[in-house]
């Protein structure tokens, strides 16, 4: 395993050094604001990061496993295609923006615009699981994949901010607990799900979250979940084509 101390590098030279490393497992210490870590990596390496990662952590990543022991900033997992990012802390805005595959697991809170423009195609099924709460515009313009917001970290803030699912036409958003309708976009419908049986399709994701952050799966399943999906899959057709079929 190769170990790098970020203090010895500037932004650019750190990225170059990580890229040049032949090791399968790489650890970086004392990060503080270094951007684009693991960005565009098309491999199955394991990147262990300690500190505060800069913007666009794992952007466009296609395969690596990234473990961040610390907080992320903006754009974690931006447009990522495959692999897994696990954050032992919180993340800023637009985490999972345009995500199209792989998994993003966040122990604490996420900022605004979580998983906006997320999409899925054939076997590419992206998933985001947030242990705390998320800000406004979760899943805006969502076109596929799964977002799960658990609120299991004891935060007293509301689970989810307003405008959740605005412009959404595919994919699913699961929220643990009851969610006020005023926070949910008009073009969405909700159903309440209870326990392992109802939650079969997302159980692997919940188990994985529980394993990463040492939660008891029974505790997570003890509350009902609200599932949000789109009602109409062509919500903007009237605006551009005048064709409503």
């Amino acid at each position, binding site marked *: 395993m190769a170990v790098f101390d970020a203090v010895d590098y500037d932004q650019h030279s750190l990225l170059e050094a990580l890229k040049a490393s032949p090791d399968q497992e790489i650890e970086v210490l004392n990060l*503080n*604001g270094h951007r684009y870590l693991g960005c565009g990596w098309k491999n199955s390496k394991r990147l262990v990061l300690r*500190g*505060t990662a800069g913007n666009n952590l794992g952007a466009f990543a296609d395969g690596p496993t990234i473990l961040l022991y610390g907080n992320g900033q903006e754009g974690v997992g931006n447009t990522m295609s495959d692999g897994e990012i696990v954050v032992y802390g919180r993340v*800023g805005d637009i985490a999972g923006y345009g995500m199209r595959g792989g998994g993003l697991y966040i122990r604490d809170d996420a900022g*605004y615009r979580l998983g906006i423009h997320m999409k899925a195609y054939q076997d590419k099924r992206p998933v985001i699981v947030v242990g705390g709460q998320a800000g406004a515009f979760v899943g805006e313009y969502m076109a596929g994949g799964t977002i799960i917001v658990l609120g299991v970290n004891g935060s007293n803030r509301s689970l989810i*901010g307003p405008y959740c699912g605005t412009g959404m036409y595919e994919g699913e958003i699961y929220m643990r607990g009851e969610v006020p309708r005023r926070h949910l976009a008009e073009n969405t419908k909700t159903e309440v799900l209870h326990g392992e049986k109802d939650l079969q399709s997302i159980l692997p994701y919940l188990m994985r979250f529980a394993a990463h952050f040492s939660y008891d799966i029974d505790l997570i399943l003890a509350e009902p979940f609200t599932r949000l999906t789109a009602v109409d899959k062509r919500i903007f057709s009237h605006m551009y084509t005048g064709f409503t079929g």
Partner: protein
Amino acid sequence: MLKLEGDIRIPSGCAIAAVMNRSAERFDGHTIIASIATMHKRSNGLGGGFAAYGIYPEYRDYYALHVFYDDDGARQMCERYLQHHFRIKDREPVPVRRTRKITDAPLIWRYFAVPREDRLYREQLGEEDFVARVMMTINSDLRGAFVASSGKDMAAFKGVGYPEDIGEFFRLEEYQAYLWTAHGRFPTNTPGWWGGAHPFTLLNWSVVHNGEISSYSTNRRYLEMYGYKISLQTDTEVIAYAFDFLMRQQGLSLEDTIDVIAAPFWSNLEQEKQAHLRRKYAGLLLNGPFSIIVATNNGLMAVNDRIKLRPLVAATRDEFLYVASEESAIRAVAPVLDRVWSPGGGEPIIGLLYNKKGLLEASPVGLQTDAQSA
């Protein structure tokens, strides 16, 4: 050949930061420089600046006027004008460190002064209105002179360059203050010049801002009706005057002021009072993406636009409050923190000195009544 979009990429977007000791214990400029320097890549060298509170305790009762001049002729002209309106206790060039990184600096002077009694009497203005009016007249009418700051026991240090280089230029490590704010600029739509760098100030107010005020023209027209002269060619200028107008002139509380500048959408208004404020001060709604830090001698307030289109992080450690565009800028100067969080859109972070109740000492009584009855 001219490079097309896509040939070059500048990954910038302005940076803001603040560090405050709520017990009013002072610390030098190293901390804020180290904080803003972490976000170097958010700015592009066309503007950097700092505001410092508590730096001139020996002149606590005097307005500290920091003035930039294009040349000595402008200085002489402006000093004649200042002497006409002020009793100047002391004057001197602001000490700077000549470095290769900062070029084309103007002449920079500071004055510790109080308004002349006879001028105040003749103008029939309160002291602060008088000072504000004189400063705006210098900025708009005296060619080659402009005021960087005009408050008491505070100053703005700003110019064209990266913020850490501006801090070195102004020798900020030699000053002690209990509240520092900072800005790294990536100018959009407006020129990068010494006067257009942040912070923007008026009296004790200072504002640093990341974003764009798309409502600039509307806000400008509104403020001009009340005598504010807008002359610095940067949208942020209107934010400073909006706070001065709403809080000092109109006597609004900080909460009400935020309901004006970052008003909730009509569909989300929860109280009749919010709707009333939105109608009454419609011209001061700040539209567009922003994160701002507004400071006075009493403390700071940081807030995002109502749908949070810019990053903003806050943290605390003992009696220190930190605010920045990126968490890394806070960790650089305080690796261990008690609490780290991001406020929602239109949700302010308010940090006051322990012995203060608001950003201003007291509001004009009559006007306050008017606003409260609203």
